[in-house]
Each structure stands twice: as C-alpha cells, then as structure tokens.
C-alpha cells in the first residue's frame, strides 16, 4: 500500500507523541503552511490518540481538548468560535502562564529560517531595523523553544530556509554564538525534531549541531545536502523514515481526515 509524503510525516510525528502528553498546536495560515502548522500536527495527534497514546491531549488556539472528529473545509472565524472543546480559558494569558510553568510536552513550530543549532527566525530577513523582508513577529514561538519539553519543527527543506546562522534569533534552539541554551539562561528544551519533506533531523550530537536522523523513501543524502545551505552531521548509517502501516493509513484516510482537509496540500 503506497502512502503520500504527508501520511509518512504524520505517522513519523505521531510516533513522537507519548501517552499523557499535552500538545500545543497553533491556529491559522493557509495552503502548505496550514498543512505544516496545523494539519499534520492535528492528524498526528489523532493518530497517536487512536493507537498508542489515548491520554494525549491538545491545546489548539485557545481551546483545550477540542473535538477533532470533524473538520470544516473552510476554516473561518465562526467555526473556531463555535468549536466544541472541554475548555476555552478566559484569555490567552492562561496559556502563557502554562507555558512559563512548563505545562506543555510538545509544540509545533515553523519559520522562515532555521540554523545549524536549531535557532528559528520568524521576525526579519536581513537587518532587523530595515529588513529585506519583514516577517510576522514572534507570537509564542520563543516560549515554545524556551519551555516546551519537545518542540517539533515542521519546515520544507530549502537552501533559503536551512542556513548556517539565522538573520534574527526569534526562538533559541540549542546553542548560539558559542554558548549553550543553558549558559544563556534557559532550561532543557529546544527543538527535538526537524521534520521536512525529504528527511528528519535531530540535534543529538556532542556539540548540539543538527544531524540527519532519517531519509524519506526515495531520497538520498546528496539531494538533502543540495537542499540546504548548512551542512548537518551525517552519521555513518542513515536509516529510512518508517513508512506508515496499513492500519495507520486506514485510520488517517477513513477516520482522521476522510475529506482530506488536514493533509490537503
């Protein structure tokens, strides 16, 4: 049984979610960015809940434990307003406090740039004061990297995005300018996986540099390196990203995303 790239990635991400985890997923964006930031994360969470992690739960936007059994094709404000959920905390300060108290196990993040040590940029390309491209700012992404136990970065591979050093460090990864995150004053955390359309990366190296963890089926190391401006650590043996099995695919196609909304693009 063949699978799509999105299904492969969904299964891979689901495997990282443990029973009892509280996962944060953001709201919004569109097209491919929606798939990366919302679609795959929600599908992966559902897959984890239905297979190995029945007690995993999600904080989505400002909804705690939203009902994810159905999803509208066109997500507009009223769909979100009316979404069934266990709780809609009084304001977003509640979530901010939870973040600083390290209440979340997993978050999903993406950006315009990520560098060799997992620092992320969603603020500005070029000079901060007169940038070549002004991006959106920062939202709670610095919090995800500072306080969440296992952030997962979802980004398609490109030379423009995977750079040796980002232009602006919005969110602190594992090290920067020769100092570890702990030396900067942060606790444990930082991105645990970088999930892309060609490969999976992690930072489990002695100096915390990005490492190639697995290759997607049909992709070779040379193609991955050609798609990056930074050179990750390449282990002697690089395994293949595990393909979803028939049961997982059936769950994704029939139960989780039957109308192909979450994994559309």
């Amino acid at each position, binding site marked *: 049984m063949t699978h799509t790239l999105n299904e492969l990635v969904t299964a891979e991400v689901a495997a990282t979610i443990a029973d009892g985890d509280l996962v944060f997923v953001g709201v919004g964006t569109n097209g491919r960015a929606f798939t990366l930031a919302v679609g795959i994360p929600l599908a992966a969470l559902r897959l984890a809940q239905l297979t190995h992690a029945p007690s995993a739960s999600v904080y989505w936007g400002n909804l705690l434990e939203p009902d994810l059994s159905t999803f509208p094709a066109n997500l507009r404000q009223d769909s979100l307003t009316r979404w069934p959920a266990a709780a809609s905390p009084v304001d977003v300060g509640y979530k901010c406090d939870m*973040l*600083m108290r390290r209440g979340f196990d997993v978050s999903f993040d993406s950006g315009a740039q990520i560098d060799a040590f997992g620092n992320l940029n969603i603020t500005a390309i070029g000079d*901060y004061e*007169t940038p070549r491209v002004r*991006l959106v700012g*920062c*939202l709670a992404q610095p*919090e995800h990297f500072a306080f969440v136990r296992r952030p997962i970065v979802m980004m398609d591979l490109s030379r423009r995005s995977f750079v040796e050093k980002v232009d602006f460090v*919005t969110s602190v990864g594992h090290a920067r300018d020769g*100092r570890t995150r702990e030396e900067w004053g942060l606790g444990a955390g930082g991105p645990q996986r970088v999930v892309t359309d060609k490969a999976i990366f992690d930072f489990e190296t002695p100096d915390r540099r990005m490492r190639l963890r697995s290759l997607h089926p049909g992709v070779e190391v040379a193609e991955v390196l050609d798609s990056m401006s930074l050179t990750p650590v390449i282990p002697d043996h690089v395994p293949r990203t595990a393909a979803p099995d028939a049961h997982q695919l059936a769950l994704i196609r029939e139960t989780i995303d039957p109308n192909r909304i979450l994994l559309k693009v």
Partner: protein
Amino acid sequence: MKKKLATLEEALEPIRSGCTLAIGGSLLRRQPNAAMRALIRRGIGDLTVLTWANTTAIDLLSAAGAVRRWEGIYAGMFSLGLAPNFRRGVESGRIEVRDFSETAMVARLRAAGQGLPSLPIKTLFGSDIALKNPEQIREYACPISGERLLAVAAAKADFTIIHGYVGDEFGNVQWPIVRDSDDVDQMMAAAAERLIVTVEKIIPHDAVKRRPALTYIPGFQVEAIVEVPYGAHPSAVDGFYDEDEAHLADYLASSGTEAGARAYLRDFVHGAPTHEDYLAKVGGLAALAALDVAREEGGR
C-alpha cells in the same frame, strides 16, 4: 454611574498625533477598524502603536503613514499572509519595530494594569528580541531567590481603543456566551489610561445587570463608549459576523503597491466620511448580513 455614550468623533477627539495608542482585538477578530478609519481621516500620525496579534488595524494605519513605531507579538494578515503596508513601512525604515513574545507582552500589560514599571519573565534569554531591545528588556537577579530573570517594561499607552461586543450607556462591556477567547482585551482594558470602546450594540443597563459575570470591562474603566455596528469590518466579531474574505482579498490586491494602497484609502476611508457611508460603500447592510453568524442567547 456616569454616562459614557458618545459619537465616534467625540470619543476619538482627544487623540493627538505623536501619542501612544494601544489597539485591541486579535488576528482577524474585533479589530477596531471604524475607529482606525476615523483617525486616518483626521490626519492623526506619528503614532506609537501597541498591539497583541494585529492585522487590519495596524495595516490600515500603516497605509496612511500614521505609524512611527509598533510594539507587539504579531503583525500580519493571518491566513491571508503578511501585512503589506506595515511590512513596506518597516522594510523602508519608516516604521520602527520592537517585537515581544506572548509571555513578554502579557507581562507588559499586567505590569501596566498593576501600576508597576516592569514585571519579570524567563522567556527571552538569548533571543534577539531581548538582545536588540535593552531599553525595554533587561536581565537581573531576583533579589529573593537569586534566579536570573528578564524584566520587561510596562505597556503604557496614552489611549487604548478596543472593539467589543455589546455594552451599556455607562460603558459596561459584556462578552457573549460563546466567543473566541484567544485574546487579551480584558487585560489591555485593565492596563489602559484612557479607554475608548466601540461596540456592535448598545444594550439596556438592565440587561447588563442580569448577567454581571459577562462584564469584562466595567464602566469605570471606560472614558467613552460608541455603538458602531460592523465596526470591525472587514475583520470578524466572534459570535456576530465573520471576516469579509472578498473585501480583504481586494484590500490586499490594492495594497500590493503604495499607489494602490492610497487609492484604497481614497475610496474607503476619505471617500466614506462616516461609518454609515463606509457600510454603504462595502455593499450595505443587506450584503453585510451575509457575513452574520448565528447568535447565542445571552449578552445582548
């Protein structure tokens, strides 16, 4: 209780060029766009603008060249991409920016609401957000525990403008039963020095008294309250109407260039001297009704 009911012009009259303005709402919800258009028509400029996650309000002000500086967690157009006029302003150096993460901005608002000059966070160690903003974010050792912390400056604004749901003549503003709580408007109201609120509908004070727990902005905090139906258009008011995707698409298409943005302002801001004129221009109440969503009982 003092009566706070005003016209939009009366409510906004004290706002002057060069002031610091906090703007409520979040993403494509409850942007106080009618108030923004009124300020633009008056030629107010040189503003320092403080926001949470902002979209149409900051971009309209930027299109008019009214913003000197922005401080907030996000400025973009949500599912529609980047905020074109704001972005152009920053990229050209006309708009100065200071970014804050969510916990930083929450601390800033709470500090202002508590009358404190700053409050601590632990978030931004090693981030360029802090390193490039030493005047507002500074590291120190907690005098009690010795722990390293970052103090963030209180978010003080001369004026605060929030678009709410319903309110009474005394300025008590209420939530509907079902709403999208992904915002910080209540916090921003508590932090305000001079708070101006526009609402979809003025309701009787007796209705407010029947559900005091829904009052998220009590009247004593409010300087003026104005009934402005569809006051957030083209953004949504959760529980009242959805965002106007067609108008937003046209706005973004126009704003691809500076000349296009000026043409948009000519048509929809300067060419519509009152909010009623604007509503007529965007299709009238019959067309806007297509954006309405089913309303829940309570709060109106």
